[in-house]
């Protein structure tokens, strides 16, 4: 199948404006005749729901949480990028575009990225107008900082809680729309399936997490803004409930899953402390602005960090990448950490950790400056580990954090299922093989505030819609399937809990499809995962009932989908026989350990097409063309 990305013609600077003009419009009076379902209420979902409601569409929004405000966008700490160039340091839309394409290791779609850079400035304006309390300077204007590998200061922030403040901004816009009865909000309802009628998505089936009721909702278009699948690793910085179910269900119904092997590992998380660990906590990457990363030069050096003299410390990032040093991109920092730990130079009780040291910064700037910049992060660290980072260096280790892969979408953010639009982390479009710091918030809000409100109108304007109801047989069929699956999960009566299966799956994925991958490992995992899945359906135990709030049943349903999805991810990692961005194949590296791309064979998007559970999906290709940024070896030396 050919994948039509529908990129408008013309110079890259004009594509979006041209496209906006060419897209069909819906008469204001007619907008209320169209109904949109938005699943997920994070940055992308909440901003889309609010913006579409403001335009006049009928919107129904869904979240499995008890409030839209709980979505995991809230946990983003560092900031949001925009090409405002307020600090006068040479930033521009073009530079943000260029940095993002380069950061994504030339595996993203130029046109999408350029549009993202273009609307980035509108996002900041919008958020400020909503009352988001960004950090300001004494003159009353907005403050910027440099963040995660950027050589300009283009990151806007609100202390260490930028994600929270932006989400609360979008949530307030959504609340306003709910208050005006423009949006019907459904809380504690989880998407269980999508309904396709006559080749177009026409609704969803959900399970009410409190009453267990299985319900159908129809619409003229469905938007999935359901986030990433990082929890496939069991341990990640994602929230506990984050799952792949919505996007995976769409995949099973015919949407293509693009680049699932692009999973980002975040270099600065608090290391694992034991088997009980339920999640990994991220420490904002901004810490790397002032912290220096090091390990002992000698293997097995068990001295306390402050007892190790300067000449026996290896500041390996500064040594290997002098121009970026501690601010090297995430994948490079992460892999370097893994390398030194694999050499036996890791620190902490598990040996999986490196030091992030603030002693120099405290000496240079004074404790109060460090406290002002990172006070809440330091407190958080101390709360979790019981160690005081002002006195002793932090211990950090990489953890799964963000997934660049996602459902394939065209320039209009529509998947291969007509009417099914995918926003934010759930789609694959803008970050290529690696996402730059402070770009996730930008993309989520760009999609929700400034892209989908235009493109969805084009979809409505270009198609005719028959009136349907939830009495349609496709809804009834989907409901019956969901009910049956729920009953199956409840009736296996085996000996292992959903969490045990999840943990096992996570170990396999982290081991063979984590920071570094190789052919043998991936092939092995492709045997282990189906075996585990088989065991799951025979040896699972779920207590309680289906018509009740049942936490283990919820978990079981999500793990079941992860067990199928993991295989797609492994296939993608195996067949992408190159290293690029966050996807590191050990077979493809330069002598110094740098990722070695194979532009000749892999300058494309791999979009996987479902063929049946356990069957190898079909790998479709969308070639990527770089007309504005020259393909180059990414070098951070």
């Amino acid at each position, binding site marked *: 199948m050919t994948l039509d990305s529908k990129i408008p013609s013309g110079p890259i600077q004009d594509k979006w404006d041209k496209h906006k003009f060419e897209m069909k419009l819906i008469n204001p009076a007619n907008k209320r005749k169209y109904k949109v379902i938005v699943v997920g209420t994070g940055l992308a979902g909440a901003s889309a729901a609010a913006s579409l409601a403001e335009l006049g569409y009928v919107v129904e929004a869904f979240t499995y949480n*008890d409030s839209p405000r709980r*979505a995991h966008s809230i946990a983003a700490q560092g900031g949001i990028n925009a090409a405002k160039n307020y600090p006068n340091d040479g930033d521009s839309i073009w530079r943000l575009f260029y940095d993002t394409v380069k950061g994504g290791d030339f595996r993203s779609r130029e046109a999408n990225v350029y549009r993202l850079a273009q609307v980035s400035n509108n996002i900041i304006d919008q958020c400020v107008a909503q009352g988001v309390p960004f950090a300001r300077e004494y003159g009353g204007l907005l403050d910027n900082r440099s963040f995660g590998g950027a050589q300009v200061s283009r990151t806007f922030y609100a202390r260490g809680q930028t994600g929270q403040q932006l989400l609360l901004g979008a949530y307030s816009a959504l609340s306003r729309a709910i208050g005006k009865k423009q949006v019907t909000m459904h809380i504690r309802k989880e998407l269980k399936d999508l309904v396709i009628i006559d080749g177009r998505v026409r609704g969803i089936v959900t399970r009410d997490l409190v009453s267990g009721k299985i319900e159908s909702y129809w619409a003229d278009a469905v938007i999935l803004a359901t986030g990433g699948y990082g929890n496939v690793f069991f341990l990640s910085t994602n929230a506990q409930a984050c799952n792949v179910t919505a996007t995976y269900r769409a995949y099973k119904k015919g949407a293509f899953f693009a680049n699932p092997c692009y999973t980002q590992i975040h270099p600065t998380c608090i290391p694992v402390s034991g088997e009980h660990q339920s999640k990994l906590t991220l420490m904002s990457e901004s810490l790397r602005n002032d912290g220096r990363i090091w390990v002992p030069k000698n293997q097995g050096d068990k001295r306390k960090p402050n007892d190790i003299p300067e000449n026996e410390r290896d500041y390996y990032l500064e040594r290997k990448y002098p121009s970026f040093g501690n601010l090297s991109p995430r994948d490079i920092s992460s892999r370097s950490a893994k390398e030194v730990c694999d050499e036996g130079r890791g620190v902490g009780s598990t040996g999986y950790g490196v030091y992030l040291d603030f002693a120099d910064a405290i000496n240079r700037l004074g404790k109060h400056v460090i406290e002002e910049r990172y006070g809440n992060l330091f407190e958080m660290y101390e709360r979790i580990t*019981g160690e005081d980072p002002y006195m002793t260096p932090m211990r950090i280790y990489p953890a799964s954090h963000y997934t660049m892969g996602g459902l394939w979408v065209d320039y209009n953010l529509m998947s291969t299922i007509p009417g099914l639009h995918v926003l934010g982390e759930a789609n694959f479009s803008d970050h290529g093989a690696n996402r730059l710091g402070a770009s996730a918030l930008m993309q989520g809000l760009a999609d929700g*505030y400034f892209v989908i*409100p235009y493109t969805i109108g084009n979809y409505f304007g270009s198609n005719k819609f028959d009136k349907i109801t939830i009495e349609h047989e496709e809804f009834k069929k989907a409901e019956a399937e969901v009910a049956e699956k729920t009953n199956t999960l409840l009736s296996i009566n085996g000996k292992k809990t959903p969490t045990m299966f999840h943990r096992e799956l996570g170990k396999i994925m982290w081991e063979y499809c984590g920071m570094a991958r190789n052919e043998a490992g991936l092939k092995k995992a492709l045997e282990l995962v189906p075996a585990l899945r088989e065991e799951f359906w025979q040896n699972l*135990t779920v207590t309680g009932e289906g018509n009740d709030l049942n936490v283990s049943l919820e978990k079981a349903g999500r793990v079941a989908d992860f067990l199928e999805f993991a295989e797609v991810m492994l296939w993608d990692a195996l067949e992408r026989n190159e290293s690029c961005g966050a996807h590191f194949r050990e077979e493809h590296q330069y002598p110094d350990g740098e990722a070695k791309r194979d532009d000749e064979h892999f300058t494309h998007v791999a979009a996987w097409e479902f063929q049946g559970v356990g069957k190898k999906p079909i790998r479709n290709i969308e070639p990527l063309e770089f007309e504005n940024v020259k393909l180059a070896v990414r070098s951070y030396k």
Partner: protein
Amino acid sequence: MKLTLYIWRQKNAADKGHMEKYQLNDVMEDMSFLEMLDVLNEDLILKGKEPVAFDHDCREGICGACSLTINGVPHGPEKATTTCQLHMRKFKDGDSIYIEPFRAKAFPVIKDLVVDRSAFDRIMQAGGFIGVSTGNAPDAHSVPVSKKNADLAMDAAACIGCGACVAACPNAAAMLFVAAKVSQFALLPQGQPERKKRVLSMVSQMQKEGFGACTNFYECEAVCPKQVSVRFIAKMNRDYLCSRVTEAVEV
């Protein structure tokens, strides 16, 4: 370490509910409080029993989903810490721990330790926003905001909407939650046009939801995981009184 847990179990909203005793033998001090409950739940499932339901999500202290009143204090004994960030090193071997849901008429129990906090959302829907539609915004630098006010607005905006303030308040008052939001917008120039209407609508909705009155115990501030100050309540009181006097609309 060994712990004795007394946990509130309640099948559903209609059930009366009761405290149930559980014994845990291998609790490690590096565990978070919720990881300790995970261990209990895994054990319960393997014994064929229903796990304890509790709200939680991000487990890094920001989403506001986790709740629990631990030994009579919402979010437990550690200052400025949500339940998910509370670690077992704050407890001793042999301790008894009482775990109850957040209690308030406006927060009805759904199951076990899970309560319905949608009253907060309805208060927000009544006026917790600046009415600016997408695309209407002027340039971000067109309105300067003094750093002092921006910082203060951020102090208020830090609220995670967990409801500990209500749970701790003997009157189940939601003043700290509402005041935080009202004050955030009242401190910013962008919030001025709707300032009076906002405080009147939000307070009115707060009362409709059945929250109690503030009697200035300051218990809310003491348990607030984000240390939102009661000074915002004072600020809201003044805003409300002025608005009641000057705003013609009876809300």
